[in-house]
Structure formats: C-alpha cells, structure tokens
C-alpha cells in the first residue's frame, strides 16, 4: 500500500482520501491482530510472573518472620491478635472458621446437607446417580428415588470455587499484614488500633465501604450467574435433562458449539442457517433502529430549536409522552392497532381505501419495516432530548461566520452541526447500537417474533422473521423443549458479536477523551 505524506494526502480528492482511509484500515488489520495476540501473551506472562512473585514473597516472609508470623500461616489472624490488633485478627480467624465449616463440617452436621468439598468433588461428573426406581419395603412397590442434583452441583461447585479464591486471597492478605506489621514495629511506630481501623472505613478507606454492598450484589447476581451460564453451554442441560427430576445432565465439551456453527452434516445444518439468518436481521435492525432514530431525532430537535418557532415546550412535551408511558402499554396497544382486525385496518376498510386488510404483522418484509417504523416513534423523543442539549452548546458564531462566507443551511448542517454531533455522541451511538441488538421489549411486545419462519422452525424455539438473537434466546429457554444449553451458546455468541463490534468501533472513534482531562 502506498504511503502518503501529509502534503500529498491533502492534495487528494475527497474520494481518494476516503478510499485511502478504508485501505489503510484493512492494511492495519494484520498489525492489530498481531498486537492483540502479543497483548494476550503478555497478559498471561504477567499473570504467571505475578504468581511467582507472590509465592516467593510468601516463602521469604515465612523464613524471615518471627514466630507470631509463622503461626499465622496456619491460624489466620494470630499475628494480628498477638500484636494487639484484636479486631483484624478476629475477623481473619472468623473467616477461616467459616471457610473450614463450609468446606468440611457443614456436610457432616446437617442431615442431607453437603459441604463445599462434596460439591467440588462432584463437579467433574455433575452427579453420578440419577433418579431411579427402587423397591420400597413399606409400600411393597417400586417408587422413584431421586439421586444427585446436577443443577445444584454445578451452581454450588462454582460458588465453592469462588469461595476458595476468596479464601486464598484473604490468607495472602493475612500474611502480608504480618509482614507489614513487623516492619512497622521494627521502625518503632505503633500499629493502627481497632478504633482507627473503623474510622478509616468512613475516611481514607471509604471507597471499600461504599463498594461493599453494590459489588456483593453484582458478584452474586451477575457474575456468578454468568459464569454458571457459560458453563451450561458445555453441558446438555435442557427440559428433558433438568438434573434432578427426570435425568442428570453432564459435560458435553464443545459439542453444542459444533451443532450451532457447523455448516456440514444434514441434521444439524438448521441451527447454523437459522443463526446466520437471525444474526443478519439483528444487525440490519440494529443499524436502522440506531440511525433512523439518530438522524430523525436530530432533525426534529433542529426544527423545534429553530428561531421563530413558538411553543417549543408544548412540542417537546407531546413527543416525550412515549418515554413517560410504560412501553408495554404503548407497544402492545400499537401492535393491536395494526392487527388484521385492528383499528387501522378497520378504518381503512370503512373509508374504502383498501378492500382487504393489510397484513402488517403477517407479511415478513412488512412486519420488519413496521417494527423499524414503530421503533422510530418510540426512539425519536430520546434523541430529540439529547440532540437539543448538544445543539445548544454549538457556538453560535460558527453559524454566523459561515453565513457571511455564503454557506446555506445544508452546508452548515454537513460542515458544522453533523460533525459536532457525531464527535460528541460517538460513544452514545455505539452503546445504542449494541443495546438495540438486545432490544427485547420492542420486538417481543410488538410482534413476539412473528410471522413464523417455517423454514427455520425445526431449530429450537419457533423462530419468526422479526426475531432478534435475544428474543430467540428467550424462546429457546421457555416451553416444553427448553434447550438451556443452546440458549447459553446463543448468549455467548451475542457477547462475542457485541464485544467485537465495540472493540472495532471504539478504536475508530475520535471522541474518546481521557477521563482525567475531562474532569
């Protein structure tokens, strides 16, 4: 590829510059791939180096430390207590007790309960004994006896691993504290008392206090479920293998991904074709939903903001109604308005404009256009609000000086307004594109995915022409033949698509500002 100097580049025509930009983007792909590869290698290298450093530090602390430190390796918090930091020491010791109790003792004390060690040991098999018939002496007949519970094994197995990691981290902190305490005492300073510790929680350690509650929620209700669901993609967990009542489920390796993505073979082909079809529509939908709203919303904002337009507030308030009224009311109602026996068709028939009802939701192409159009109705108000705020910030003298130079309204728009808007709202466009890809409400409430795509219906869930990946995922997880593992595969693929788009676009955006600069 030819490299231009700055001067040569400026001499090029608009088209040549555009082509040059595209060419250089593709030319840079191998290099960025190489960089990404190197980054991953470095990442793992750094992790291993860090682990090595930690281990060597643990060893040297043990060798050089006094007896209090040495005992702390077995009884956590001993060193803290012995040096007068009772509060910290007790907390460490308590954590160790809880850990040991959970791992080993809980299973013995509670009848029918299991400790962490049990869950961990069952994790590789996800359960050995399924529900089976057993002879019952009392009833003198065969009854179903339930065995292991794969679902719980997977869930608590993951939880136990989280807990072990937390324990190792705490144990490491315990050792580090001993080392630091020794150093402080050696230098002749006093250690922090329990009271000071508590005070620091609302002062220099205040961030830990503030983050404790939100992070616990995120870890328990987001991170843990996501890890669990990623693992489900490698099992055969579905409606007929629910792990307890009818049959256990077990590890499948990459089998499900192969089913989803392979183009060869006869029986499985349906999945890859369906996935490709839905992904294409999802991308088309996200593109139109984002950009129609963006440009029309900007246009409406400019109309309302124009000098000489009166009752600006009234126009805005009317538009904002669609934000205020819960979507399930407005979308469900609008969806019924356009139904075959709905009010729109009814009126058109009454006025003799049409002779038979228009199949708004029955015709695939029409249904797809309809969801995009109705989404404009929902989406314009947001963009109008955002654009209004930004447009007001554009310095007015830019427009005045451009008018003196003879620029018309269109030129002003393409040379001033649009670049300014795009520059500022770049990141917003990206997030709104990805959230449109996952826009469950609009699609599900308007069409429920209909009309049904007969050709793809042998794949899990009854797939329709307006189904996005996210509504497909929902359909797979409900009903009799729920295939949780397939839903999980779809979810992972959605994640990959979103992540790749975000990474690529993020790199191209000009307006990623340094956070500190902004403040």
């Amino acid at each position, binding site marked *: 590829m030819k490299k231009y100097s700055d001067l040569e580049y400026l001499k090029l025509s608009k088209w040549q510059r555009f082509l040059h930009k595209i060419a250089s983007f593709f030319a840079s792909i191998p290099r960025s791939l190489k960089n990404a590869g190197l980054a991953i290698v470095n990442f793992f290298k750094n992790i291993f180096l860090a682990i090595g450093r930690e281990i060597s530090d643990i060893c040297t602390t043990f060798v050089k430390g006094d007896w209090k430190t040495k005992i702390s390796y077995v009884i956590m918090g001993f060193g803290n207590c012995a040096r007068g930091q009772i509060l910290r020491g007790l907390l460490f010791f308590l954590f160790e007790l809880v850990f040991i109790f959970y791992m080993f003792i809980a299973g013995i004390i509670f009848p029918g309960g299991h400790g962490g060690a049990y869950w961990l040991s069952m994790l590789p098999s996800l359960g050995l004994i399924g529900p089976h018939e057993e002879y019952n002496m009392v009833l003198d007949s065969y009854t179903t006896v339930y065995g292991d519970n794969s679902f719980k094994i997977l869930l608590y197995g993951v939880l136990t691993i989280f807990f072990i990691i937390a324990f190792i981290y705490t144990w490491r902190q315990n050792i580090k504290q001993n080392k630091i305490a020794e150093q402080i005492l050696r230098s002749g300073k006093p250690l922090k008392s329990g009271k000071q510790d508590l005070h620091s929680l609302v002062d220099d350690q205040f961030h830990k206090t503030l983050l404790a509650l939100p992070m616990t929620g995120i870890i328990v209700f987001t991170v843990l479920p996501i890890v669990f669901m990623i693992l489900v993609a490698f099992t055969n967990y579905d409606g007929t293998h629910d792990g307890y009542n009818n049959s256990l489920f077990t590890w499948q390796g990459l089998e499900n991904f192969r089913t989803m993505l392979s183009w060869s073979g006869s029986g499985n082909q349906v999945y890859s074709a369906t996935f490709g079809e839905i992904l294409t529509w999802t991308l088309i939908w996200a593109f139109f939903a984002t950009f129609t709203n963006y440009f029309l919303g900007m246009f409406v904002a400019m109309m309302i903001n124009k000098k000489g337009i009166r009752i600006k507030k009234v126009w805005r308030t009317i538009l904002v109604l669609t934000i205020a009224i819960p979507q399930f009311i407005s979308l469900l109602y609008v969806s019924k308005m356009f139904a075959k026996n709905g009010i729109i068709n009814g009126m058109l028939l009454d006025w003799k404009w049409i002779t038979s009802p228009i199949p708004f939701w029955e015709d695939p192409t029409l249904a797809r256009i309809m969801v995009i159009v109705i989404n404009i109705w929902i989406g314009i108000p947001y963009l109008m609000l955002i654009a209004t705020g930004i447009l007001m910030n554009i310095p007015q003298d830019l427009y005045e000086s451009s008018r003196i130079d003879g620029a018309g309204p269109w030129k002003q728009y393409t040379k001033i307004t649009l670049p300014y808007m795009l520059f500022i709202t770049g990141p917003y466009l990206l997030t709104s594109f990805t959230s449109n890809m996952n826009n469950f409400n609009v699609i599900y409430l308007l069409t429920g995915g209909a009309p049904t795509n007969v050709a793809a219906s042998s794949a899990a869930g009854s797939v329709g022409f307006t189904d996005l990946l996210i509504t497909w995922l929902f359909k797979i997880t409900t009903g009799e033949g729920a295939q*949780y593992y397939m839903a999980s595969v779809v979810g992972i693929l959605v994640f990959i698509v979103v992540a790749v788009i975000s990474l690529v676009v993020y790199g191209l955006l000009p307006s990623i500002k340094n956070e500190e600069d902004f403040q």
Partner: protein
Amino acid sequence: MSTKGTRTHMGLKARSRISNTVIYVLLVIMSVVWLIPFIFIVLQSFRIESTWQVGYILPQKWGFDNYLALWNTDFKQWYLNTFIIALAVAVLQTIIVLCMSYTLSRFRFKMRGPLMRFMLILGMFPGMLTMIILYRVLKDLGLTQANAVPGLILVYIASSGMGYYVSKGFFDTIPKSLDEAARVDGATRLQVLTKVILPLAKPIVIYTILTAFMAPWGDFVFARYVSFGTSAGMNVAVGMYSWLQQDMISQRYTMFCAGGVIVAIPVTILFMCLQKYYVEGVTGGAVKG
C-alpha cells in the same frame, strides 16, 4: 441599490416564513401521530357497547364499565405489587447507584480501572441469559410465584450497581476542589459526601429515583418468569399482557385500555413534573458516554 437591498431582505424574511410554516405543518403532523395511540386508548377505555377490537374510534355508548370491571379482576393486586416494587427499587437502587458512581468518580484506588473494565465486559453479556438460573435460585429461596414481589425487588436492585455511568458522568462535573477544600477543613470522606456532594447532586439523585421508579412498571420478561402461572405475584405488565392473548382479547380488550390508562396516568404525571431532571440526566449521560 437600496431597492435591491430591501428585496433580498424581504426575500430572506419571506423564505424564513415559508420554512417556518413547513416546520409548523411537520410538527403538527408529528404531534398527531404521537398522540393518536394515546387518544385512541383513552377513547376505547370508555367504550361499553362491545369488549373486542372494532374498526371505529368514537364509542357508540360511553361509560365507566371497563374501569369498574377492573375492580373485580386481579388488576388491583397487580397494581399494588408493581407499586411496592417500584417504590422499593426507587429507594434501594438509588442508594446503590449513588454509592457506586460516587466512588468511581472520586476515589483513585488500585482496582478502579480493572473494575470499570470488568463491568463494561459484564454488560456485554445479554442479561436475559442469567434469568434461568436466577429463577431457579429464587425458587429455592421460596421467592417466586405468589412471593414474587420480594424476589423481583432483590433481583432488580442486586445488579443495579452496573448502571452507574450516567451519575458518574454527573459527579465528574462537580469540581474536585470542593472535596479538597472540605478535606482540608478536616471533614472525613463520609462528611464530604453527605454535606458537600449530595446537595449539589440533587438533579442526578432525582433522575436516578425517577428512572428506577419507572422501570418496574414496564418490566415484562423477568417478572413473567418469576410469577409464572400465579396471578397473585404478577405485575401489571405481565398480567395485562395475558389479556391481549388470543383467548382473552375478545373479552378483555377494552379493559386493557382502561387498565393502561390507570397505569399510565400516575407515571406520566410524575414524569412530566420531573421532566427537567430527566432531560439533564439523559443529555449528560449521552455526552459523557
């Protein structure tokens, strides 16, 4: 010379009058399009001669029958459920979001960068995926079906820390020198938050409360999962969705309209009163990304 000048002047004025007229026409058309569904829904809620969908707008017989009929269904239970959820979520979610965003805006600790990147990546997973397991866990805790309300509150607020972006953007705009001045005067971090920052952050606090309050009224998917098959645990969205399904729509269509009006009125009034703060939040969020 002077005539030419006036002519262009007149021309400009005339042109701007024309373009303004065009804009007015467009705005009126848009307003009509935006209002039509809502006017229809109100009109149909008063129609008492039939309960199914019809092809005309103005009712032939007017009356409050549909509103009265709501009283005999589970609608009031759904409404109460949703209201309790919305109230609880508004309070708790606001606290959590403010904790999170204030911390990430003001404190510089070692894990801050990795934490924010981690949450960005987490946000790319479709949330729907976690519903299956959350449902099973809630079921084990006994928080589904008839007890869906506490279960839903728990799930809504638990992960709300991830939605810190908008309010963090707002906190970023409050000058740090204010914090530092207060710190120099001997205030602890807690005092800085409660005495200095929170009074300044009123718009974003109201924005957070407003969005948190409004979200449960529209939530459909997870609420349907959790309350599955038990009318007593449903929220308005789930309950009223079933009225528009094939088997119910001919008896319940006008009641859906009436219920929709009752749900929409308080939420809309609240929104309109606090619109100013909403606009501030939305604009700020988009600009700062």
